[in-house]
């Protein structure tokens, strides 16, 4: 079981969850964040701080967001475009930094204007 970042994060990355995550398991691609399912300890601290309400416990995922469950995992287990091997479980997002690349599924989501993002603190 794990928490999952869904489509409302895409192009509206606030990183509030990154600061809150006690095990630093939320990694940054290019347009979205991804939760490393093996590193996630299921504490749920990320959920209430996300201004986009993008994070769900896997059992609570709305039907339309279900593909993100596997997609979050793919970010770590599949070799991302332009990289030579899967990211795996680095044990912390801070040293890894922003990867600048997304999973093919997230990359294929139409771009969203920043004006459609939720204002932080709203």
């Amino acid at each position, binding site marked *: 079981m794990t928490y999952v970042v869904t489509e409302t994060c895409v192009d509206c990355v606030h990183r509030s969850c990154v*600061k*809150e*995550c*006690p*095990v630093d398991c939320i990694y940054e691609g290019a347009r979205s964040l991804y939760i490393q399912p093996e590193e996630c300890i299921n504490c*749920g*601290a990320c*959920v209430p701080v996300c201004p986009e309400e993008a994070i769900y*416990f896997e059992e*609570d995922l709305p039907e339309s967001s279900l593909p993100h469950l596997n997609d979050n995992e793919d970010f770590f287990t599949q070799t991302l475009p332009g990289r030579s091997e899967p990211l795996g479980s680095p044990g912390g997002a801070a040293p890894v930094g922003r990867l600048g690349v997304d999973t093919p599924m997230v990359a294929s989501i139409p771009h969203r204007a920043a004006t459609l993002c939720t204002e932080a603190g709203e």
Partner: protein
Amino acid sequence: MSDAGAGANCARVAVVGAGPAGLYAVQSLLASAPGIGVDVFDRLPAPYGLVRYGVAPDNQKIKSVTRVLRTAFDDGKQVRFFGNVRFGRDIARADLLEHYDAVVYATGAQGERKLGIPGENLPGSYGAKDFVDWYSGHPDAADRHFDLHASQVAVIGAGNVALDVVRMLAHSPDKIAATDVPDRVLEAFRGSRVTDVYLIARRGLAQAKFTPEELRGFNALDNVDVVIRPEDAVLTADDEIRVGSDRQLRTNVTMLREWAQRPLRGKARRIHLRFLQRPVRILGENRVEGVVLERNEMLADGHVRGTGKLETLGPAMIFRSVGYQALRLPDVPFDEAGSIIPNRQGRVLQESGELAQGEYVTGWAKRGPCGVIGTNKSDSAETVSNLVADLAARTSCRGSDPEAILALLVLRGVGYTSWADWLRLDDHEMQLGRRQGRPRVKVAVLRSMLELARGA
């Protein structure tokens, strides 16, 4: 991270308390001032505070946060651990202020609120914390015993601790056996005769303080029916609006309503979630025989009012779980009304309201007993950024010899333990666990902990 000046990089900082708040403060210190030296003091030979002694045993995945918390001690020099050192007895505030450039209090909330109703001190009525200490193998509860022979048990309160206690009472013994509880605790759960566990919440289901993460734990109870009466599952118009705009609350209410509608399945144990009920008095001559509850009604402002309608339940065991509470530390300022160490963003305030030089606070002692483990990361980051800014404003460090504190402890005959000692005890507990096919088996007696830690 703030750019640390000269005063921060040569500084030595003492952190009192090795729970999540203290250890996140350590991480934050290392990240913002790479040259800093940190000593962490704890009254027990085991670190991790409530991660080890508060997070319920059936939540081993959350306990794996220790993987991150322990990294600060890896090199063994920059951050030192002094276990089995009690603040105010073995080491005083004045000692720390003399030996360190700054002190961070991360002592948590070690007390507990009472109900203030008749009968609360009868045998059979306990603080939830006593029970949590006991099943978590806390040395403070090493002499306690809970026989769990009551068929009905009531838990008063609607926070995460109350849910933990309810869940632990309702689990099948096999589920408890898959946890790290001490052997004698497992035996007590194997002998449990509990059939009905009542959770009594003063306010409505939309006001309950527990988080969806904790409530969801009920889904893992395989031999339990969750009972919610229709009259307890109603929401006021105001509640509906709040639920609509608060996602955590929505998740809670969705789960609770689903359980309320589910037909009972004839399971061996039942959890009764009672909302809008207030305990009026605990019944019994020589020990608990029941509890009288008064029906509350919700007012528009979110408060409740008693309706005078009474109901009697017959639990022979009652746990009050209405909030942990920080206790005053010897010689350290304390805000009695707020039950915290008074502070401004983590800078300790004297009781006069002036800033106390070189003293800081984080975690529950700073903000009160709320939030989850992750909350301590940002909370400690705030405290440490202020601490580091204050140190950076200084031109030099106190320059205390790191060995001086050791000499002081030895002189006082304090049998402190080190990080290597803890790793020895940790390893022993893991071995005990492996032998029984369990994740770990905790050692709960302080003397044994110390012997095993020292390899005696």
